């Protein structure tokens, strides 16, 4: 995966420099009339290495999609900074937001609403390059190329309208559209969750192949753990707007640190009839993000919650380098004084 990176002409910091660093990203949506706000993303810090796929998992409403939009500045962050390949985004001396959008693209979950219903799909694909300064002919040529790259015959599908395509075909068009501007990084916001299982596999394999072909870096957002396990190199687990655990895929799936990650993994249906999942490992709904619990946000549902969890906010351990496995849990923090320290 790292081998191809040296050929990338846009690469500036070398393969060891993270492609994207998000530091303390924060987005609170004000709730009209109440003076309160929904803390959709609350201090999220992580890095994405070049050429890797970072999976982002979490329950509905935990801020995954807001995070995706923050990474592209589609939603303006309240606080925090983004660093793209060494360049701070949107500040003088760094790269402009437009510059970021030339290098990062997004594939949306809803393949239907993410295509203009009144535009033939070849024009939808050509729109990005056209906006970024390509001549109409070049843009159209590129669109043809991209459509065939995602497995759609441009002569047959190019002039069609989105309603004439199936969900899987539309999602292929969305992928072609995202890749048409030649991005280095693609944010995939639940790209396969609206698709049939068989189509899902096709699209996932297509994404893998395209990643290899174009030296892409993915941020793959999903609530489906199996999909994330299949496609990701590293995983970031979110809960109520915060990162609770981040680490390499094998480490997280084999030895999860955080009780929430364990609960998530345990909630997967067992494939072994002899080892049925008898009880739901996690109960209740996540707390209201308008008024999140103090201290550790998971303490209201955590089986190991103690006093310290209710008062002190656990921090994500520093870890060494990009591939360390860290969790924001007092059980793993010797200074917190949690009675179960070291037991898990």
């Amino acid at each position, binding site marked *: 995966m790292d081998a191809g990176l040296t050929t990338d002409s846009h690469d500036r910091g070398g393969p060891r420099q993270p492609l994207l660093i998000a530091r303390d990203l924060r987005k609170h949506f004000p709730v009209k009339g109440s003076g309160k706000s929904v803390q959709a993303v609350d201090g999220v810090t992580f890095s994405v290495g070049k050429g890797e796929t970072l999976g982002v998992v979490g329950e509905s409403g935990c801020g995954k999609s807001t995070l995706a939009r923050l990474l592209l500045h589609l939603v303006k962050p309240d606080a925090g900074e983004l660093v793209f390949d060494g360049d701070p985004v949107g500040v003088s001396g760094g790269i402009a937001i437009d510059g970021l959008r030339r290098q990062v693209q997004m594939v949306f979950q809803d393949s239907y609403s993410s295509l203009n219903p*009144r535009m033939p799909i070849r*024009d939808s694909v*050509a*729109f990005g390059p056209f906006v970024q300064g390509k001549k109409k002919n070049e843009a159209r040529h590129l669109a043809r190329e991209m459509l065939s790259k995602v497995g759609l015959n441009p002569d047959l599908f190019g*002039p069609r309208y989105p309603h004439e395509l199936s969900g899987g075909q539309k999602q292929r068009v969305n992928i072609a559209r995202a890749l048409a501007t030649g991005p280095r990084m693609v944010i995939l916001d639940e790209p396969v969750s609206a698709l049939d299982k068989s189509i899902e596999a096709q699209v996932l394999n297509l994404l893998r192949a395209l990643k290899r072909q174009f030296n892409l870096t993915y941020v793959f957002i999903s609530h489906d753990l199996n999909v994330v396990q299949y496609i990701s190199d590293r995983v970031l687990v979110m809960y109520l707007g915060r990162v609770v655990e981040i680490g390499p895929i094998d480490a997280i799936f084999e030895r999860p640190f955080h009780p929430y990650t364990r609960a998530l993994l345990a909630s997967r249906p067992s494939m072994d009839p002899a080892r049925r999942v008898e009880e739901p490992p996690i109960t209740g709904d996540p707390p209201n993000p308008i008024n999140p619990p103090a201290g550790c946000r998971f303490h209201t549902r955590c089986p190991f919650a103690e006093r310290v969890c209710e008062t002190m906010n656990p921090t994500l351990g520093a870890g060494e380098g990009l591939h360390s496995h860290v969790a924001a849990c007092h059980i793993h923090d010797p200074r917190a004084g949690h009675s179960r320290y070291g037991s898990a």
Partner: protein
Amino acid sequence: MTDTIVLDGPREEFEEQAPPATRVRGYWQSVFYRLRHDPVTLVFAAIVLAIVVAAICAPLIAPFGPYKESIVGRLKPFGWRGHLLGTDELGRDMLSRLIYGGRVSLLMGVVPVLIASLTGGMLGVVGGFAGGRTNTVIMRTMDVFYAFPSVLLAVAIAGAMGGGMANGMLALTLVFIPPMCRVAETATTQIRALDFIEAARATGAGTATIIRYHVLGNVLGPVFIYASSLISVSILLASGLSFLGLGVRPPVPDWGLMLSTLRQSIYIVPLVCALPGLAIFITSICCNLVSDGLRAAMDVRM
């Protein structure tokens, strides 16, 4: 229109290179295809077309001049001395005046709607896309006009500015801007929330580019359909203004005005007096039915 929006050059090239295996139609092509298979709409569209052509070619078609009076031939019934539809209170040929009257009535029907669609539509798109305070200012201003019944508003504006055709048209335009604006605003607000707008923004496209390529095409349909239904309303309102003496001035032939002046003679030649009303009725109902047909044909998901 929308299918040629981004890349309007080498489309033909495609079709020459490799004809698609299945027949693929563009948006407007499929609209026309559906219209062709809708006989009701076609018939009424033909009637509207006939009325329009008659109005345009009035000097060629009309058997008499619209102002040619006759003292002896006043208020005569159908077919009197070559006057196929009789004569009015000054002995002018009804058929000729109806044909000429179509010019004014159709103009009063189409022009205000056209201007209102452009201005109201633009206001609505801008307000809907900008959202927030801009939208509130625009839409609340429009709401002020909603407080008055449209007929009353038209009468008040035309009355304040004095009669005449130009002022009548202006009054009607002002009446139609608020509903037009609301239709465009609603459509834009719906479109704006969809992911493809966000995707366009993610490519770095500016607001103007997004509106031009992604919003207008989607707003055009609803605005066009609504505008076509307003034409009949406009014809009726214009007739009403003329009837009240606030639109066209005599002796210019206009359906509303003719109805107004002939109403005193309703007991003498009732059928002749009803003719202008019939013309208004036929034109507006045909416009309405054609607009209904268009609405059905323009629905993409069929």
